[in-house]
């Protein structure tokens, strides 16, 4: 009985675990190994162990790119939080039959290819594009406003792409908040702001943290938006990694850059897990 259950568990876990081990852990292991090897002249790596790839990360130009990436991703995450929170809150308080509709609408953009949606932004924002064209036709402006190929355009594009990844975890966190808690606080005389601050936000925090990780990390790694919407005039970490593999034929340095991204992801997940467990630990202690 017991062993057959264990067998069933293995059968259920097996395929997924093997898949992950093969296609996630092995490539990750390769990246770690490559980051310590020497560039092959024609791509690939030479089996000479070195720390040069990590030393190069400290060169001003790469520090600058990493700094820009962190700044851009942080701003995108903050804006996603500010825009996503009210949206998630309202959706979670909708009658249940509308909730599904609203969530489907949030996910709707994913049904269209990411590149096509990015091109749509180019058509909207460029100097001869729809927005400038309309404003010019209405006589509201005399010269087109430069919107495309600027840093704000990059952030707009990133925000557009990743906002759903903030809304969904926020929704799932807010949805689980017992409305009775907010009612009780209101009945006891708390202002709406106080209810929001002391009940809603703390209970939604796990969702906020997960959503932030989901937005922050891919924002740093994106290379299409800076290229198409940013006009290649600034680089994110993603561009740098892509270029090492596809243009510079410098796989070890590309691997070292990719490891930074992994390190940031692991650090954020660690912080998120700690914050969440501390909160939930606190809650369960408070319960009896």
């Amino acid at each position, binding site marked *: 009985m017991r062993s057959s259950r264990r067998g069933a568990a293995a059968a259920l876990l097996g395929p997924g675990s093997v898949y992950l081990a093969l296609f996630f852990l092995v490539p990750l292991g390769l990246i770690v190994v490559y980051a310590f090897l020497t*560039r*092959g*002249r*024609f*791509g*690939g790596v030479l089996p000479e162990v070195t720390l040069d790839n990590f030393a190069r990360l400290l060169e001003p*130009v*790469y520090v*600058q*790119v990493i700094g*820009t990436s962190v700044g851009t991703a942080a701003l995108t995450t903050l804006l996603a939080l500010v825009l996503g929170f009210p949206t998630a809150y309202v959706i979670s308080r909708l009658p249940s039959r509308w909730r599904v509709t609203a969530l489907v609408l949030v996910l709707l953009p994913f049904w269209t290819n990411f590149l096509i949606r990015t091109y749509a932004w*180019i058509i909207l924002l*460029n*100097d*001869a*594009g729809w927005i400038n064209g309309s404003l010019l036709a209405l006589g509201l402006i005399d010269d087109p406003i*430069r919107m*495309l*190929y600027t840093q704000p355009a990059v952030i707009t594009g990133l925000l557009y792409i990743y906002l759903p990844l903030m809304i969904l975890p926020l929704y799932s966190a807010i949805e689980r908040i017992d409305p009775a808690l907010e009612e009780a606080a209101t009945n006891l005389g708390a202002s709406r702001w106080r209810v929001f601050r002391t009940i809603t936000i703390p209970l939604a925090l796990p969702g906020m943290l997960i959503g932030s990780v989901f937005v922050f990390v891919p924002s740093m790694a994106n290379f299409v938006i800076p*290229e*198409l919407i940013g*006009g*290649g*005039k*600034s*680089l994110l970490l993603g*561009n*740098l990694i892509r*270029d*090492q*593999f*596809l*243009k*510079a*034929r*410098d796989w070890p340095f590309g691997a070292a850059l990719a490891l930074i991204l992994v390190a940031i992801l692991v650090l954020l997940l660690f912080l998120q897990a700690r914050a969440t467990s501390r909160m939930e630990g606190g809650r369960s202690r408070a319960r009896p």
Partner: protein
Amino acid sequence: MRTRRSAHAVLALAAVAVLTACASGTATDPIDPDADITEQTLTVSIWADYYPADLAERFEAETGVPVTIVNHTTNEDVMAKLTTGADSGIDVAFVSGQYAQALAEQGLLAELEKSLIPNESNLYPEASELAYDPGNVYSLPYAWGTTGLCYRTDLLDFEPTSWGDLLNPAPEVAGTTTMLATERWMTLPAQKFLGFSINTTDPDELAQIRAQLEATKPTLLAFDDTTFYEKVVTGEATMVQAWDGWCNYGIAEDPNISFVLPEEGSDLWVDTMTVLASSPNKEAAMAFLNFILEPEIHGWVAENILYKVPNAPAMEALDPSIIDAFPNMGITPAELLEQEVAIDLGEFTVEYSRLVTEIQAG
């Protein structure tokens, strides 16, 4: 004991010899002009949409050799397959000239057996004087062209003639120009404008190129090597650094678009056909190269891709209306040869990567 040990040594030596023989066997697998190629099969790696859609069927119909065509998107893409795997399974690879040079230097390419490629005589004499592979020992040119300025005659009130028009643009042009972002091409305008070689490895010259590009960057609409001709079509850009063939795609949509080869000169880029040393089907591969050089097949590229091909009868057979509509199709081999061929810079490539990163990130 001693005898046994020496027997071991002999065995080991023999094993080494056999292994070496095998290794060199795969590397130089001699070409047998009388081989029956119908028993061979070919795998050809080429850029997507760069060949007639029915190429494989036509070659098989003519020679009986089945062909599998695989596509690569960039040179780096196919280089990764050819240089890292034990055996890529690829017999014929289309790569740009400096990549063919790099592959040949690594011993990965087979010397071409010209007796199996009689159609080589269709090539212009200039096509055997290309710096990355003089005499076309390892590669044959498939298409060639240059890089210049692609601009809107109706939006500019002057005719650009110099790289300086792009690098130090007039105030009314600033903000409506783009440059290529691929490293060897991003540096090209500054190199030619300053009178340097596009293959320079001189740190002082690189510093001057950097200074020029740093001054140019704020005047650019964007760095762009994928959609620049669309920007010219929409009028978002008035003048862009462009490959000749890509400018033709813009001209096809708007006859107000023109191409100019700047007076300081430019590059001669060549996309080539190569046969891998590891290929067990070299005779069929040579036949495939020969088939491409048929004026009808090669001419298809010029007519449909709007890239010049180094094939004299193919270019002579080209409909004159194509050259009327796309004047850069009429650039002669002699004019092309006046431009500079990019060669592989080995370790120095890293310096170009760094420079381009600094310009883009700065």
